[in-house]
């Protein structure tokens, strides 16, 4: 998009006077709405398959609850650090922003590592998506969630390094982008908050 074109589109930094939101704020919530329907469809499928299957095992008997609890805490902490990175920008503390963003990325990677261990244990025990629908659901739901975490990590990496140049040229727009990235990251945490009890504890 050329400079001239960027000038022509309003409400990138400043919110619309009537709706009260910027374009990207509205857009990310619309995107999250579609993600709610995506994960909702998977949850719906999980429910349908489980209620009609008398052999469905209880998650806590079969899955690694301590590891998943650890992952829950990792993700919740990363949500805090993410919102702190945005708050740092609002306080004009770019150094603090980098610190919290880096922490968020590290925690996200930690989540993926723990998940890697979990999956590895399952594969060693010869439990695959093909084993039964419990494992199919487990791998698909946590796997798709994991892909979303990965996407968030990559986005955050971009904002930590290459994308952070915008702080110098347009701090308002940059803070807006971090807020929007934060909304995505919190949503990924939200999905896990439902996933964890539904799959691991019930």
């Amino acid at each position, binding site marked *: 998009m050329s400079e001239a074109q960027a000038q022509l589109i309003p409400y990138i930094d400043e919110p619309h006077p009537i*709706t009260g939101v910027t374009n990207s704020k509205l857009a990310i919530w619309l995107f999250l709405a579609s993600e709610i329907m995506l994960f909702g469809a998977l949850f719906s499928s999980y429910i349908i398959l489980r209620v009609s299957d008398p052999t469905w095992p209880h998650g806590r008997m079969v899955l690694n609850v301590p590891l998943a609890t650890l992952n829950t805490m990792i993700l919740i902490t990363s949500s805090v650090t993410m919102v702190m990175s945005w708050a740092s920008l609002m306080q004009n503390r770019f150094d603090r922003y980098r610190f919290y963003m880096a922490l968020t990325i590290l925690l996200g990677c930690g989540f993926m590592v723990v998940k890697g261990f979990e999956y590895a244990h399952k594969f060693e025990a010869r439990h695959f998506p093909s084993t039964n629908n419990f494992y199919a659901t487990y791998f698909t739901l946590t796997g798709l969630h994991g892909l979303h975490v990965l996407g968030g990590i990559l986005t955050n990496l971009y904002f930590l390094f290459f994308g952070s140049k915008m702080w110098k040229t347009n701090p308002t727009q940059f803070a807006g982008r971090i807020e929007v990235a934060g909304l995505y990251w919190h949503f990924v*945490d939200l999905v896990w908050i439902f996933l964890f009890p*539904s799959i691991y504890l019930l």
Partner: protein
Amino acid sequence: MSHDALTPEAIKKHVRIYIAVFVTLACLTAVTVGVSTLHLTPALAISVALFIATIKATLVACYFMHLISEKKLIFSVLFITGFFFMVMIFIILATTRSMFVI
């Protein structure tokens, strides 16, 4: 998020809220794991687990995602989405009722 009152004091207040929410979330996580070790009936177990999860999710949404001070437009989008989310889950479930075993 209303960006109008973002003085250093306001930010400090927000940070205090974030920490408080974090502590609450940690406790609720412990509670939900603890409750799962009790041998509740399926209906009760599911209800309690989803109830706690909903509280946690509401805290994340309201405070981390700033929904508590968000504009009407965003709420409308979420409300519409929530409605169709419920339709998708409950209506599909209703069509398969004959196959329930639990």
